[in-house]
Structures are given as C-alpha cells and as structure tokens.
C-alpha cells in the first residue's frame, strides 16, 4: 500500500551540477514550483500551477537536485498529523496505522521510506520537527530570516521558515547550506546564511557543551518519551557534554500565544483566496461577497475555516487587545526566557513531541487536544530561533525525537550537538 506521501508525483531533472547532483528531493506542496501543480493540500488550489519557482526551488535546481514530487501536507500547513490534507492522510512508514506527524508529513514520510533522499518542509509551529520526530528522521527549523520565503504560500509569515528533512544530521545540514542565504525578494532574509557550511559542523564533538533542559517542556511528556529523552542526555553527557535544568514559565502560555498569532496571520493571509485570480471560483452569481464566501466554503476544509474564523475573531474590534495584543506580550516574554536560558547554556534540549505518533483518526474530533501537542515546538517559532529534531531511541517501537534549540543563527551549534546524538 502507498503511504500517500505525495500529492503530485512528477520528476523535474536539473541540468546543473552541484552538491545535490544525484539526489532526489521531495518538495512540500506549499512551496511554488514553476509548471508543477502546487495545492497546499487544499481543494482551493487543486488546479493551481505556479508561473514561477520559489527561491529555495531555484537553489535546489542550481545545486543539481532532482525533484521527485510535491509532498502531502496538512491543508495550508494547518495541522499536526497531515490528516487535514484534502488529498487524504499520509501513513507513517514506521507503523502504517499511525500518523506521520505534520504538517510536513509527506516530506518526512517520503524520506523515512526512501521515496526521496531528502525533502523540504516548512515549520510554522513545529511542522518540520514534529513529522521528523514521528517518522524517525532529522528535521531543522532554521532561524527566522536564514532561508528565503519567496514563493512559499504564506500561512503565518512572522513564524514560518522553510527547512530540510533528511535521514542524517549531516545531510540535513548540507541541504540547509544549499537553501540558506539572503534573497532580495524576501526582505526578512539576513546575511548570516551566506556561504554557510553547516554540514562541516556535524562532527559529533560535544566536549564541554552545556545543555539546558527547560523543565516545563519535559514534565508533561509521556513516560516512554521521557525515558528515551533522558537516555539521550545521559549519552551526550558520556561524550563530554553537561546538562542542567532551567525553568521557563513563559512556555506555558506559548501554545495559546502561538495559536492566536498564527490564526490571526492566517485570517489575513488567506483572504487572498477569493477565486478570481487563482483557486476555486465561487461563480458570478450575486454580489462579490457572496461569490467569495461561496468559493471559500467550497475550497477550504474544516481546520482552515476554523483558524480563519478564530483569527478573524481575535483581530476583531473589542477582542484585539484581549487576544492579539496579549499574545504579542507572551511572544516577547518567551523571547526573554530564551535569552535568559542561553546565558548559561549553549543549547536547550527537550523531547520534540511530548507523545508518540497518534493513531490515524485519533485526534481529528478535538482540535484543542491537537493544538496542545505542539507545546514543545511552538516556543521556538515565537522566539525566531533555530531547532533540530534528531531521532533518539523509541518507545513501544515508535520513534522519539530529541529537540535541540540554539540561539539566533546558532545552526552550527545545534547541528554539532545533534550529530553527537547519532553516535
């Protein structure tokens, strides 16, 4: 049986020679590919064919990569399981009765199953790290501004980054080297990624590395996940690293803050889908508001509607100060907590996901429960920091991911630390 890792399976060869020659790459279906359908996992964009490549896709092609298809995903990136895709769920190759995580579930499943050597995902609140953890592969969420978002179909632009998924830390870092660096078409990109060599940092040397463990991100986790997590830290300690616990009280508000901000941004970003310039048409009956509302009823699935409506609500007059302004305060608070934690630590560590992969269908009826599963990943996006998920053992035969968080533009440090976990 197919894992349903791809929405569109089509091979795009590159004429160029480079570091990715001979490598097959799955590209998440919210990243624009010229001439190749890009659906965002939505019926809204079922027939959408971008007339241009995202910057990261240009860089893949320049590096000699072969694109093997557009990977399945939660609709517009809104989900933690890849089950909100309009093209059906992706199965976890480790256990096909389980979800691969999300929203970049197709990307992670394709890599874990060997259907692609490497993949690009996007991470707004954990969407690279969660599926990497659930499928037993490596995923990196870069520092905000390291990788161009030009050509990424926006969900929540103040939070999201494109990043690599790969079987090993070194391969993930090498793919990040290809896509990182400033882009004049994305004014939020920074110079730090220019001429990077993150792959060289995958040397496994953690002698003297100081690891902070935010207790709030460990205490609530599943027992089997916790056991695997502490085993991994003991292993790093045996290799010369030291760890200590830290408290980050702001992280207990991170899920609420993240969802308020992400939904608010989504309600604005997805306003463009009116069925006129692209996307499902609402026809021409009635006035324009009727036609737009019809296009959006037909084109969007439940989770997308839910987030657009909640975002609209959070931004509406009378509620803006209560939700959106407070969420921005919480975001600043989370940043401060991270700054304080990094005064005494080179990296911070937590389980990537507090739970093992869900069973297919388990979480669909209760959106709030699904949001809470993102507790350990969303603080990183709120603080614009880099983080990696690396496989760290298993519980009941299911993969457990270790998340290592770095300071801003500290990609080399998290790559180095994560490569030691593979030893």
């Amino acid at each position, binding site marked *: 049986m197919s894992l349903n890792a791809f929405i569109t399976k089509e091979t795009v060869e590159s004429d160029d020679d480079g570091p990715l020659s001979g490598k097959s790459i799955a590209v998440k279906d919210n990243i624009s590919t010229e001439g190749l359908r890009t659906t965002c996992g939505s019926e809204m964009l079922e027939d959408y064919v971008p*007339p241009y490549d995202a910057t990261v896709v240009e860089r893949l092609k320049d590096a000699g990569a072969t694109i093997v298809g557009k990977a399945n995903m939660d609709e517009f990136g809104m989900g933690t399981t890849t089950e909100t895709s309009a093209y059906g769920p992706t199965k976890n190759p480790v256990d096909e009765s389980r979800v691969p995580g999300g929203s970049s579930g197709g990307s992670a499943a394709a890599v874990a199953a060997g259907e692609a050597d490497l993949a690009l995902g996007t991470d707004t609140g954990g969407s690279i790290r969660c599926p990497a953890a659930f499928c037993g592969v490596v995923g990196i969420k870069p520092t905000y501004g390291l990788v161009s978002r030009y050509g990424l179909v926006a969900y929540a632009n103040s939070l999201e980054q494109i990043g690599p998924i790969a079987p090993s830390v070194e391969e993930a870092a090498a793919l990040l080297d290809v896509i990182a660096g400033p882009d004049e078409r994305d004014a939020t990109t920074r110079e730090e990624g220019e001429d990077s060599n993150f792959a060289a940092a995958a040397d496994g040397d953690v002698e003297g590395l100081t690891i902070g463990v935010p207790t709030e991100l460990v205490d609530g986790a599943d027992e089997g996940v916790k056991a695997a997590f502490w085993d991994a830290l003991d292993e790093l300690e045996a290799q010369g690293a030291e760890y200590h616990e830290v408290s980050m009280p*702001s992280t207990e508000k991170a899920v609420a803050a993240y969802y308020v901000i992400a939904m608010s941004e989504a309600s604005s970003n997805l306003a463009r889908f009116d069925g006129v310039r692209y996307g499902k048409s609402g*026809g021409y009956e009635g006035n324009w508001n009727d036609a737009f509302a019809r296009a959006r*009823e037909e084109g969007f699935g439940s989770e997308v509607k839910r987030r657009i*409506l909640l975002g609209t609500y959070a931004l509406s007059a009378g509620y803006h100060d209560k939700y959106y302004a407070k969420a921005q305060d919480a975001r600043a608070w989370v940043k401060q907590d991270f700054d304080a934690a990094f005064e005494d630590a080179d990296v911070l560590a937590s389980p990537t996901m507090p739970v093992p992969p869900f069973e297919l269908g388990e979480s669909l009826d209760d959106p709030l429960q699904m949001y809470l599963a993102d507790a350990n990943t969303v603080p990183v996006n709120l603080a614009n920091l880099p983080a990696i998920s690396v496989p760290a053992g298993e519980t009941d035969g299911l993969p457990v991911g270790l998340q290592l968080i770095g300071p801003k533009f500290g990609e080399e440090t998290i790559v180095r630390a994560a490569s030691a976990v593979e030893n």
Partner: protein
Amino acid sequence: MPDETAHTETLTPGLRHLRYMSDTPVDADEVRHVAELARVDLDEDEVEEFAAQFADILEYFDALDEVPEVDREDELVNVMRADEVREGLTQEEALSNAAETEDGFFKGPRVS
C-alpha cells in the same frame, strides 16, 4: 475598553451590527457573524460544531490574561529597496490560473 461600551462595526455594505465586548462564550450567532466578516459560508452543522469548539479554544486562550506586561526589545529595522521597474510576470502568466478572463483582465463577480 469598559464592558458597557458599544461600538458600531461596518461589515458588508448595508449591514451593521452593534457589538459588545463580553466574556460570554461563543454562540451560533457569533460564529455566523465572524464567518460573514471572514467571507466564509458555513452550513448549519458547521456553525454548531464551531460554536462548541470555539468555546473550548477561547477559554484556553484566556490563559493569556495572566501574561505579564513585557518590555519588547525588538531591534527591527525597515528594509527598503529602490522603487525601480523590474522584471515580473507576463500578463499571460499572471492570468494563467484565473477561472475566467476577459480582454487580458481577470473577470470577477459584480461589485455591488
């Protein structure tokens, strides 16, 4: 804003709702109102389902009330570029995904 304060919010042309800030949980009317603001038609089952789910989710968001006032230390700078003509999509490319076009323009529904 005190709870008693009412203000008028303009939605679509010809439609006005008087809104009050309150902590009362979301009901079906509120969901319909927000759906109208967001230009998303919903069927009745969705309205009922969303009303129940939104009550849970918004109650969870109330935890933000406990967030302390924080000094924001953003070091943000504007990034500008010269306002120069550069290469963009051709008209044909720009129209290539539209459901209907007319004489090189997008065709949209009536604005009224």
